[in-house]
């Protein structure tokens, strides 16, 4: 038995193309990884991390646990296709082995086993195999059916919007849609002619045999197998160029991520694994406030990754993002969407310029003496109530403060970084790091989450404890250096994106507020909190669009019925003040007003 028939050629070609392209891509990406990343792989590959990665592959690439959590139907759709197909292949292989023993069979022999061996002589468990294969096919077909429904009525899957695709996607998608119905038909006709099959192919086969004559069945038999093979061939050959690249790419990604590889603010080879692991499921579209409030629907992460992958990324798309991180928390593949967007901006806009910001040299406008440094942040200069509240708090806590920017400081560099001017941002970072070091502080408090984030992520401030003022206040309360007077005020709290999703600080401000009064939560909070819309990361939307986002967000805050809206970011504070009718305060004000002095 040679296991060859002419109709298998499309499948063989398609499979070969897929294998070659995949191999080429992964090899190229791996070879181009920076030395640092390669070191990480060498160090970790033989550790339990690989095992953990393997388990994650099973959970995420096959079972799609995270998608199940977002929406069970959507999860079933993904896992029925992924797991069902894998099991079809696996059981098919076992079936082959069960019949032929452990001998070499070409790939097409496994795939088209039913064709080559329509009446196989498996003696034991034959009915079981037939049943298993039919069951798995039915599961996969149900997945395909759900995919069709999703295309037409996405809301059933909890998605308000579904992804718009490129040409390769459409070809691959169409081929995929046909693969399993064609297999079903081909196998059913085979059953009709030769018998066999179970509840699905078998009964369809009997039905066909009773309605059609043998000649007709014989006439459609070969063409159906051809079509099945062609559909597979088309799918495989377009797959590496389409969204379905994610099927395989997610696997190396999971391993690499377990080895601690991550994207940075400069693009690098590892990014390919993240970018091509995007299945364009579209889950990131709905959380995006640009979409839900403003109806902007071509800039979301899924489109960003798509455009980046096909080298058609426009600056207007890259720049049109609040970088609030809401989509990132929902991404089932766990792609670092914000970092990738940042390094895209950097690639498009960063122009190294040695002379830039030379005017910073020799400037030192700091004042005061103390081991604790206070970096208010540029925006905080426009919220003087926060400044005076912090003064009160520092005084009450008995802390001596060195003020980094009381008389106007140098920006932390995050805004430049957010707009892609990475090299320029480095100058700010160098300047401020040097300033902090020169004044020998051991603790750095900032009132601006934007600054906080860059201090933590990009500054090398070993030996300096970097904290947000909400953390500082909570610490002072815990240490007993600040005593709060409880009131019967009702507060609600807005999580700033950079503080919450950005730095993971959710509890500290809440604990501080709870020390003063009652805290009521808005509909979206913590990891789900809405962005205020004024994000520095977005330089495309205009003032009125910012305000529409802000009003939507403050609407939720006001719906809590709280008397005061509290936040802990000067930018959010300014925005909420503009958009909301309710009294708005920075957390420091709330604290400063309610310090208990015995």
């Amino acid at each position, binding site marked *: 038995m040679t296991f060859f028939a002419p109709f298998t050629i499309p499948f063989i070609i398609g499979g070969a193309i897929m294998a070659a392209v995949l191999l080429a891509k992964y090899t190229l990406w791996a070879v181009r990884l920076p030395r640092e990343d390669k070191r990480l792989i060498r160090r970790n590959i033989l550790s339990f991390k690989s095992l953990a990665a393997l388990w994650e592959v099973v959970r995420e690439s096959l079972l799609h646990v995270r998608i199940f959590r977002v929406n069970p139907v959507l999860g079933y759709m993904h896992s029925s296709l992924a797991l069902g197909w894998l099991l079809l292949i696996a059981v098919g292989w076992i079936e082959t082995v069960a019949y032929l023993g452990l001998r070499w069979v070409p790939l097409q022999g496994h795939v088209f086993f039913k064709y080559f061996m329509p009446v196989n002589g498996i003696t034991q468990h034959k009915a079981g195999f037939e049943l298993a294969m039919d069951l798995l096919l039915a599961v996969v077909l149900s997945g395909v059916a759900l995919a069709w429904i999703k295309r037409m009525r996405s809301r059933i899957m909890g998605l308000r919007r579904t992804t718009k695709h490129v040409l390769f996607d459409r070809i691959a998608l169409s081929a995929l849609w046909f693969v399993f119905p064609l297999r079903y038909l081909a196998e059913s006709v085979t059953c009709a002619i030769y018998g066999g099959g179970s509840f699905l192919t078998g009964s369809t086969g009997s039905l066909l045999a009773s309605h059609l004559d043998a000649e007709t069945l014989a006439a459609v038999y070969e063409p159906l197998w051809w079509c099945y093979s062609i559909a597979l061939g088309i799918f495989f050959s377009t797959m590496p160029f389409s969204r379905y690249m994610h099927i395989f790419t997610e696997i190396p990604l999971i391993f690499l991520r377990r080895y601690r590889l991550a994207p940075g603010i400069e693009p690098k080879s590892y990014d390919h694994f993240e970018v091509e692991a995007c299945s364009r499921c579209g889950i990131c579209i709905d959380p995006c406030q640009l979409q839900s409030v403003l109806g902007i629907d071509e800039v979301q992460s899924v489109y960003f990754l798509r455009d980046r992958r096909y080298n058609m990324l426009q600056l207007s798309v890259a720049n049109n993002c609040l970088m609030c991180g809401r989509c990132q928390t929902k991404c089932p593949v766990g792609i670092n969407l914000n970092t990738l967007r940042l390094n895209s901006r950097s690639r498009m806009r960063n122009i190294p310029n040695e002379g*830039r910001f030379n005017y910073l040299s020799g400037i030192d406008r700091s004042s005061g003496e103390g081991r604790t440094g206070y970096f208010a942040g*540029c925006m905080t200069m426009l919220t003087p109530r926060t400044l005076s509240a912090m003064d009160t708090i520092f005084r009450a806590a008995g802390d001596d403060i060195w003020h980094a920017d009381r008389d106007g400081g140098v*920006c932390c560099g995050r805004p430049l970084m957010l707009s892609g001017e990475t090299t320029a941002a480095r100058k700010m970072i160098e300047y401020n790091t040097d300033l902090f070091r020169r004044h020998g502080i051991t603790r750095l408090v900032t009132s601006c989450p934007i600054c906080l984030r860059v201090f933590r992520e990009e500054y090398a401030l070993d030996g300096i404890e970097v904290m947000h003022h909400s953390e500082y206040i909570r610490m002072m309360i815990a240490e007993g250096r600040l005593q709060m007077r409880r009131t019967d005020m009702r507060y609600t709290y807005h999580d700033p994106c950079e503080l919450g999703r950005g730095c993971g600080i959710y509890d500290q401000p809440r604990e501080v507020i709870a020390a003063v009064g009652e805290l009521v939560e808005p509909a979206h909070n913590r990891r789900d909190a809405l962005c205020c819309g004024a994000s520095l990361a977005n330089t495309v939307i205009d003032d009125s669009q910012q305000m529409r986002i802000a009003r939507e967000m403050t609407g939720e805050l006001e719906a809590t019925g709280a008397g005061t809206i509290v936040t802990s970011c000067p930018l959010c504070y300014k925005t909420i003040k503009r958009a909301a009718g309710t009294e708005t305060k920075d957390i420091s004000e709330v604290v400063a007003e309610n310090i208990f002095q015995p």
Partner: protein
Amino acid sequence: MSGLRFGYGINRPRAIDIDSNDLRKSNEILREMPELQTCIGCGSCTASCTAGNLTEFNFRRVHTLVRRGEYRSAYEEMNKCMLCGKCRLVCPRGINTRGVAMLIKRKLGDF
């Protein structure tokens, strides 16, 4: 030319000559960001400017000159901006000032 030395040159006119200025870039910038035309020249942006606190950088002046087709050194000047965003918070016309800074650099720089 005999290249005689007179001990003085001919001063260049200070006038902004709209006729000889090429307004193409300026028009492109205004087309992308029409709200820049709504500037009433109040100077809040310049007054609040973090970079302007440390240098002679004057955002209002630079973008006004650019609108008049005076591009010389606008890119270099705009590069003094730290994009910190204070100006956008104070602008009474709600102009996307950071977007303006980036747009001017994009149109007048080399990228």
